[in-house]
């Protein structure tokens, strides 16, 4: 079964044979740059007002600065493993298929967001913002990775 026309790998690929590490690294850096900048723009700027409605749930400015490295580390790991998943899942690359994978990964995140809404006193506005934000974030990040990685894929040579 291939959903959404994704050209999945029904047979086990050999990562050592198909992976171009230079392109992988560039795709990872591009994904990290986008994820971090979009995250800052969406969650810190656009959603700032919504987050301020429940200040008890969030760290203060000074506390946040003390924990800032965790934010960077989280985005580095996220970008690395999203890139790895794209390369593993769509070895031929391409913005479209990787954007679809990004959509599926985003859907994995939406479940926990709904659970968070049930257990934490976040507002509906915050829930909707997180859902829309993660959809955009992962779809565009997936497309970016696919576009960068595509050109050197063995399937396109």
């Amino acid at each position: 079964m291939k959903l959404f026309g994704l050209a999945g790998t029904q047979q086990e690929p050999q990562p050592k044979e198909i992976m171009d590490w230079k392109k992988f690294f560039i795709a990872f850096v591009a994904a990290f740059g986008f994820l971090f900048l979009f995250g800052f723009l969406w969650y810190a700027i656009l959603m700032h007002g919504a987050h301020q409605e429940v200040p008890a749930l969030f760290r203060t400015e000074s506390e946040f600065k003390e924990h800032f490295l965790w934010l960077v580390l989280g985005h580095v790991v996220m970008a690395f493993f999203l890139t790895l998943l794209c390369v593993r899942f769509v070895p031929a690359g391409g913005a479209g298929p990787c954007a679809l994978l990004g959509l599926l990964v985003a859907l994995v995140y939406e479940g926990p967001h709904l659970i968070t809404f049930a257990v934490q006193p976040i507002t509906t506005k915050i829930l909707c913002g997180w859902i829309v934000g993660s959809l955009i974030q992962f779809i565009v990040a997936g497309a970016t990775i696919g576009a960068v990685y595509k050109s050197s894929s063995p399937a396109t040579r």
Partner: protein
Amino acid sequence: MKRFIIAFIAAFIFIFLWGWFYNGVLLKDVFAEAQSLFRPREEMMTLFHWIIIGQAGLALSFVMIYASGFAGGGIASGVRLGIMLEILAVSARCAFYATQPFPAKLLVLISIGGFIEMIVTGVIVGAIYKPATAQGS
């Protein structure tokens, strides 16, 4: 399609039961230490359907990704997919830790439970779902 639906139902049942046992029973006291970050129990129960929908969505997304690109490798591929998705979830938790005053111990324990959840989900989905060519052989 039949195996897809069975895999989804099996994954959902496991995620639901594991979520209840791990978060609701084993980590009950740890969650209580950060009570100010959570809804009161009565309020939580009125929103319980969102937990069900969220867990069903998680199970469905997992099976969709597996069926789209990992199905050829069986259980090993399911486990690999589960580990990758959980690492992505841990990375998101790092971002949450930076912005929300969760105790580190709670997030570490949730992540350990998350790895168990996603690995077992991968085993279940990998064991049940087979691509069309593999089913025919």
